[in-house]
């Protein structure tokens, strides 16, 4: 089992004929993802890489059962694309697009909640259930099926950590990039709860970074609700306050959002915080073996 997606997930690509959408549709198809349809307004009726293209999400739904959609449309139109998917009640919406205005996201977040569907992102790499399904832009070759669930605010850093785990022969159940914006559809807590219920997942790696208080709230949640071992990593110990470190959400404002505060909050709940990606591997190994001896 994996969380959110599996071998039979039927995926729609919004913005399939764009350069980003097109490139990553090919990579997803190579990985074995079941892409059943695409949407590009005005290109309905055409075929892209063997995938039928429709003008609207609703139209695609008339011809296909759609479980998830992935959005590659430009920032200016991305909020509209998420709203369209939510209005059509696509159960899982993954938005890769970066630079969506935060005032758009304030409304989108509420609307998605109202519709009872799930949004991952925006400004995220997507998610992968190794060997089964990939939705997003994560590299195809670095993941391996296995017992570790990863949830992360970052992209490349997630690849680094997954790659080091895979090289150490520790595979992953599902890897979820939740995105680096101040307002994202799903937070650490939402994904942690899913990993807790998932039978394949035996340990969880949480990758955080400076900005906001999501890691602190995750620490509280883990102490309360998660019985599986969790290993954390936080990026940005050397980041100065007031400077945005790449991601819109990665900024220390006032005393809020420092890596130190996050590490302290996690450690105070008994969650080990690795200081290097390599240490994540060591701590995960330990977590998995302790668990094995406990059973």
């Amino acid at each position, binding site marked *: 089992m994996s969380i959110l997606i599996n071998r039979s997930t039927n995926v729609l690509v919004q913005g399939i004929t764009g350069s980003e959408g097109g490139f990553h549709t090919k990579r997803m198809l190579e990985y074995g993802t079941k892409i059943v349809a695409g949407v590009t307004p005005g290109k309905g009726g055409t075929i892209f890489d063997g995938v039928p293209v429709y003008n609207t999400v609703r139209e695609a739904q008339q011809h296909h059962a759609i479980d998830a959609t992935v959005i590659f449309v430009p920032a200016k139109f991305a909020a509209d694309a998420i709203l369209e998917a939510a209005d059509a009640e696509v159960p899982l919406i993954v938005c890769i697009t970066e630079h969506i205005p*935060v005032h758009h996201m304030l409304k989108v977040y*509420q609307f998605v909640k109202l519709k009872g569907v799930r949004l991952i992102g925006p400004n995220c790499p997507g998610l992968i259930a190794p060997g089964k399904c990939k939705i997003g832009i994560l590299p195809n070759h670095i993941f391996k099926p296995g017992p570790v669930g990863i949830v992360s605010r970052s992209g490349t850093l997630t690849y680094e950590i997954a790659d080091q785990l895979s090289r150490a022969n520790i595979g992953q159940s599902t890897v979820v990039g939740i995105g680096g914006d101040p307002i994202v559809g799903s937070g650490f807590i939402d994904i942690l709860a899913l990993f807790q219920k998932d039978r394949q997942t035996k340990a969880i790696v949480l990758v955080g970074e400076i900005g906001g208080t999501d890691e602190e709230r995750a620490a509280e949640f883990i102490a309360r609700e998660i019985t599986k071992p969790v290993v954390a990593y936080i990026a940005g110990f050397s980041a100065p306050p007031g400077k945005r470190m790449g991601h819109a959400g990665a900024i220390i404002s006032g005393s809020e959002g420092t890596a130190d505060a996050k590490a302290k909050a996690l450690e105070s709940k008994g969650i080990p915080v690795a200081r290097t990606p390599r240490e994540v591997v060591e701590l995960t190994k330990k977590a998995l073996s302790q668990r094995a001896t406990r059973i």
Partner: protein
Amino acid sequence: MRLQEYQGKELFRRVGISVSEGQIATTPQEAEEIARTLGGAVVVKAQVLVGGRGKAGGVKLAQTPAEARAHAEKILQMSIKGERVRKVLITRAVEIEREFYLSITIDRSAKQPVVIFSAEGGIEIEELAKTHPEKIIKFHIHPLVGLQGYQVRTALFQAKLDPKWMTPLSEIFFKLYEAFTRYRAHLVEINPLALTRDGRWLAVDAKVMIDDDDVPSELAGWEAEELASSSEERAAREADLQYVKLDGSIGIIGNGAGLVMSTLDLVALNGGRPANFLDIGGGANAEVMKQALKIVLSDSQVRGLFINIFGGITRCDEVARGLVATQQELGIRVPMVVRLTGTNEIEGRRILQEHGITPVAGMEEGAAEIVRRVSHNI
């Protein structure tokens, strides 16, 4: 994008919030003329984006135009927390009866705008939150509904204010919310919001932050006033690279914000001090890599260079080509360590090795290696 006080006040004025009358000056002469036109006592205020300018001596009261000129002369030569003062705002001094605090910002946890109001303005709100949390009134605005009258009434009744202040204050709440949405702000703050002796309500200061991803066309051209930044930061912005200048000596280039932050941390953990944060982003080609190298190497404090690339969409061979081209064009005279893995890694490594560069195995080794080489200058 953070706005200077005078810019923030201009936005407030446009939505109908009264601000203390004033004008901007870039020279002492201008300051004197403005003070003369305004008449009476004026306040000379340094226009900087960092906090604490008052304590640093960047805000002065002047009784006469000559005094305004003298203050402006001093303030225009100041640097406040590293930020050069280039402009001063000359405003008419007002006699204040009472000061309030009012702001709207985005609460990331609640994923909604939050209004913060206090009947005790003029002081640092974070400080007040620590010492007297009961004096701060907070409530959220539902983004699909907007600010509602009952919410403002509830807040004002809770503050136990003079009933005759209810209407004017309530109007300011709504006008500030209009500014927040119309200008796509992350923050609009009036501190202090003053009730003057002669019964006027004035925004005496203005702090506004606009979403960089959504600058309204009404503010086109305002970006030039952005935070006084280093020349490297300006060059990076033009090249569309994410760059932050830091105060250390080891230049860092990587792809992906999280990975670059993690790289900085590793360098620091090994006892080195990063000179910058630079994210070349996803899918960077040789040209982007060249630009990135130029920006980092133009920083005279850089004594070593660590490049950490994990190729996903970014191709290692493109990065290697950019690196080799820059080395041939500019010459890289500082110690350099390269970590290169992922998409097209074999080709990338081959290109580097042909030019005498041997990539390190992992980012942990790379960080240790660059710190060692910089501290021994090898």
